[in-house]
């Protein structure tokens, strides 16, 4: 992995989001939905708490639909238009290309997340929240977004069709969310504790909710980072296998 190549590819990718309406549509919808979820569904004001926990609680569901929309084009479009042939005959490795695209998508999500700062200002205006917990929430949200993006990147490498990429990504991400859902875990209540714990340990929710409580456990961070590495690795393998089709 050469930093020089990654940085050139990263810049091209990131600016490509802003060359089309994708960036603006995504950001507006993201901000709008996180507002709706927090204030309307989450009863932000009625709870009377000066924190952002309601805001973060909805992030997995927000990402479930928004991130696949972001990642569906990542590789599918390159393959469909044939530009993958140009990209991979330039002096870059598949690994460098995969990492750059991922990082650009991640950076873009970080920008969208950053733009929710008025929320943070609002709670600080209304009360005296624990800003460390809020910072942990942002960190957790960003890590979880990374995991969603890495899954999306793999699935986008699998097909030339962006709609298919979107649908499959949603389904796979849903599995990763639901495996920590109380309802699903109750369903396994007959099983030994160890199995229930294993299932829930694979869930985004379990790890994410523990981070946004302000408990930064290294294991949660490692969980998300290793998911990212694993799925990016899959992406590289899939590209190598499927680039010619």
């Amino acid at each position, binding site marked *: 992995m050469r930093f*020089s*190549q990654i940085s*050139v*590819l990263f810049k*091209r990718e990131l*600016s*490509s989001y802003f*060359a*089309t309406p994708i960036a603006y549509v995504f950001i507006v919808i993201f901000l709008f939905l996180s507002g709706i979820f927090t204030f309307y569904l989450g009863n932000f004001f009625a709870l009377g708490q000066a924190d952002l926990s309601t805001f973060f609680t909805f992030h997995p569901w927000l990402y479930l639909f928004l991130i696949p929309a972001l990642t569906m084009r990542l590789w599918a479009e390159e393959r469909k*238009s*044939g*530009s993958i*042939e*140009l990209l*991979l*005959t*330039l*002096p*870059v*490795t598949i690994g460098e290309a995969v990492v750059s695209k991922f990082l650009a998508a991640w950076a873009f999500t970080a920008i969208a997340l950053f733009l929710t700062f008025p929320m943070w200002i609002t709670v600080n205006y209304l009360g005296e929240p624990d800003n460390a917990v809020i910072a942990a929430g942002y960190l957790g949200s960003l890590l979880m977004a990374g995991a969603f993006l890495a899954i999306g990147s793999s699935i986008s490498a699998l097909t030339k069709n962006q709609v298919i990429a979107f649908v499959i990504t949603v389904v796979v991400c849903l599995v990763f969310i639901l495996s920590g859902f109380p309802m699903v875990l109750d369903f396994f209540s007959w099983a030994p504790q160890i199995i229930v714990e294993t299932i829930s340990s694979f869930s985004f929710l379990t790890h994410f909710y523990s981070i946004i409580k302000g408990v930064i456990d290294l294991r949660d961070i490692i969980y998300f980072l290793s998911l990212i590495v694993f799925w990016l690795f899959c992406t590289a393998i899939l590209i190598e296998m499927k*680039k*010619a089709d």
Partner: protein
Amino acid sequence: MVNIKNLYKEFGSLMAVDDISFQVNQGEVLGFLGPNGAGKSTTMKMITGFLTPTSGSVSIDGDDIVNDPIKVKQRLGYLPEGAPAYPDMTTMAFLDFIAQIRGFKGRDKSRRIDDTIQRINLDKVVYQSIDTLSKGFKRRVGLAQAILHDPDVLILDEPTDGLDPNQKHEVRNLIQNMAKEKVIILSTHILEEVHAVCNRAIIIANGKIVADGTPTELEAKSDNHNSITISVRAAADQASELRKSLLAVSGVYKLEALSAADSGLLTYQVFPEANRSIIAEISQHIHQQNWEVEEMFVNKGRLDDVFRTITTGV
């Protein structure tokens, strides 16, 4: 030097490239010819490292594309079939990206980009986004991208497809001007182009090389090569007599009547026996017979004929 050894590529049960080997040296402009689906693009994709060969090897000055891809790709310029690019970028942004990924910085980078824009005549579309460019301009942007870093080896898949006649001419000049210090491999369906720019041609059919030589050598394989077209002023009823007399000339293999006689002209194409030239014999014969000849010329043999004969197996 580009060295291609026993290259195979299998797609499922289809052998798209079936044991292709050749070498190309600096200064050579090699034209790839062959019918649709012959395996030209597939071969190029393996040379440039996009596809991994099922077996066989490609190397540039001893560096193998599979073992040492980055080193080889740095020395390669490639225009893929259809000239793909990033449609949402402007020509300038795209070339800037290519220059950066090729490792150019600062002054050197801008100089390269400007230089390439001049050479490919892209001035008019520098700030236009690529998806709004016409087909020919898209192709030219692809070409610009391929030559920007002045590569030692240039692989061009149908470089003049979609260009207007002026641009075709320009691009051919460009290729010829670069030829001396490079290895250039291009594919084309335009046979006259092979004459114009290539000093070597390879014809591929069904994944195999079926002919390899200079354009002139290939033309010599044509049945028409060294045949003589002759028009004699004579009445129609003299035809059979004339025919008999021509066939009797030494070295003549066969004769084909080309036009109806009502113009008062009898036109024939006279074919020599293999590898013979019969112009001297024919002229002498005409002289002896005292025929009134309107027109006579030696056919050189056309690449089209050779192409058709070889690739259809007729």
